[in-house]
């Protein structure tokens, strides 16, 4: 070790070793931050009121169940489909602290799924500011979007409970006031069609998912088995069903997948073969997978699993940390946060990329986004992080965007219940 290496090491340890963190204070800060994201409300479901009805021009894309060649065709070299120059330009620096757009003339009829720590869940309606309880849920759970509603696993043994601790798995249809019990197992994940979910479970003898094989089975959202059991490759878990394949990822995730690109594999349960892999997956819809090649300057690719064809999008990819994004339930719209921090929506049917102005925020301000109830209304929520200048919690913003809109519709949220719902929105 050279002199400067030794001196640097000594300097760092001499200066830092006496430093201590107040663990309880850190925990409080972490939980406060997390509450803003997901603890009080595990998911958001929104029905669009007549005033904000989805433009009929956005046609839903039908997904044929026709079996198709499994192998993805080699994606074309990243051909920059140059969008309009202005659309991908970086926003002004430094980034603003609030979203900007047109004011909401009338508050849309958003419907949030709220879950309290007691396990009670309810729908909160922004138009009436009233809650409607959801019956049949007995313990706190984490909600996950599946086609047509929300799935939750009531982990009675807690997060650290081994996989063999079975949980009761429920489905809450959008707007329903009673949850339906699907079965028992570890988790429910989305399938490629409405009215069906995949149920994942482990054998009773499994105490660690490392190198263990999970079992999956397709169930209807009313709790009836729709197909045979499939045993996944050891060490993998199911992300979701895509077409007639299953999208898998490592369990536990590799280091690089925690906060960076997600590595995933497309697996054919009938032949038990991996038919494709994605080093940097962004999101998957019912029949398509958005992924980014690991090369500088490459564009995001979209694989249609039914045809096996991959096409380049105008979304700049090749980001070392990966992109975050989300498909609408029908898989026709993909929202992505660009490297410039702006949100952009890619319409798979028209192949148009729309950068939504006013969505880039500074790093100190949190922001979540997702499709309302899987619809074509994009909801974005934002608030100041730990650096509010207007008070401990500062203002929160609720915004939405629909295809055809030129700008966001933005409102400042002041109602306490609505603040809780907005703060807890998780894409």
């Amino acid at each position, binding site marked *: 070790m050279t002199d400067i290496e030794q001196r*640097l090491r000594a300097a760092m340890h001499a200066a*830092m*070793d006496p430093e201590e*963190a107040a663990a309880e204070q850190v925990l409080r*800060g972490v939980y406060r931050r997390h509450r803003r994201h997901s603890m009080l409300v595990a998911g958001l479901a929104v029905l669009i009121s007549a005033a904000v009805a989805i433009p009929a021009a956005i046609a839903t894309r039908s997904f044929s169940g026709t079996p198709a060649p499994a192998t993805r065709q080699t994606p074309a070299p990243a051909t920059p489909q140059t969008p309009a120059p202005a659309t991908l330009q970086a926003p002004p620096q430094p980034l603003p602290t609030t979203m900007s757009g047109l004011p909401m003339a009338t508050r849309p009829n958003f419907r949030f799924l709220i879950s309290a720590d007691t396990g009670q869940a309810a729908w909160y309606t922004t138009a009436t500011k009233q809650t409607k309880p959801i019956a049949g849920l007995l313990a706190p759970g984490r909600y996950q979007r599946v086609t047509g509603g929300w799935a939750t696993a009531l982990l009675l043994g807690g997060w*650290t409970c081994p996989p063999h601790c079975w949980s009761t798995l429920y489905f809450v249809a959008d707007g329903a006031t009673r949850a339906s019990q699907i079965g028992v197992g570890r988790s429910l994940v989305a399938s490629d069609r409405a009215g069906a979910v995949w149920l994942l479970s482990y054998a009773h003898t499994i105490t660690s998912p490392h190198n263990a094989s999970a079992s999956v089975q397709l169930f209807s959202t009313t709790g009836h088995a729709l197909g045979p059991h499939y045993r996944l490759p050891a060490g993998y878990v199911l992300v979701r069903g895509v077409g007639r394949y299953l999208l898998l990822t490592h369990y536990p995730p590799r280091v690089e997948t925690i*906060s960076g690109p997600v590595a995933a594999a497309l697996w054919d349960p009938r032949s038990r073969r991996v038919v494709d892999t994605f080093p940097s997956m962004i999101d998957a819809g019912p029949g398509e997978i958005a992924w980014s090649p690991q090369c500088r300057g490459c564009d995001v690719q979209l694989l249609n699993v039914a045809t096996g064809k991959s096409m380049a999008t105008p979304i700049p990819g090749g980001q070392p940390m990966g992109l975050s994004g989300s498909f609408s339930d029908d898989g026709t719209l993909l929202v992505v946060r660009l490297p410039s921090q702006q949100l952009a929506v890619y319409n798979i049917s028209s192949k148009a990329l729309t950068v939504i102005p006013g969505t880039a925020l500074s790093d100190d301000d949190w922001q979540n986004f997702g499709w309302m109830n899987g619809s074509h209304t994009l909801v974005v929520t934002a608030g100041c992080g730990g650096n509010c200048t207007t008070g401990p919690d500062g203002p929160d913003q609720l915004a939405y965007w629909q295809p055809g809109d030129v700008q966001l519709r933005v409102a400042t949220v002041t109602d306490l219940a609505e603040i809780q719902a907005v703060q807890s929105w998780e894409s």
Partner: protein
Amino acid sequence: MRIPRAELSFEDFVRARSSSLLRTALLLSGQNRAEAEDLLQVALERAYRHWPRICWSEEPERYVRRILANASTDRWRRLRRRPELSLHATNTGPVSADHSAAIADRDYLLRALAALPPGQRTVLVLRYFDDLSEAATAQLLGCTPGTVKSQAARALARLRDLEAAAASTAPSPAAPEVAVDD
């Protein structure tokens, strides 16, 4: 340090490792304690979201350090107009003989570290403070060992250059600077 997996709750992990993580965060943030605490909370909150998966890993702390390093890089990347860091706050160069000068030398090195590009700084902190090998650093940062090696070499060369520049411009003991302020 490894915590027995069966007993590992998120709270236990934070209680056991938050001080160590804070020290790393302090170095990554240029010794700004407020920023370091903020960075630590951001990283731990992200880890909390994934805790059901992380807690099953053999080394949860490795995951959290990875998140911390990434969060730090993200933060610095977005702070476009961060102020230049002065290396001459004490008018003291890095080379001196007595004890106070050693402290000044240490202080100088840390300020020089804080002035490095975030990627290089992260590599130095992981290599020489967290005592990770080149391979482990590369795995944690998601790059090749060769990249770690070259980043570290560049960073150390930069530190040497800064030292040399400071030594050449430091005031001579025989001709101390005259205070012009009253």
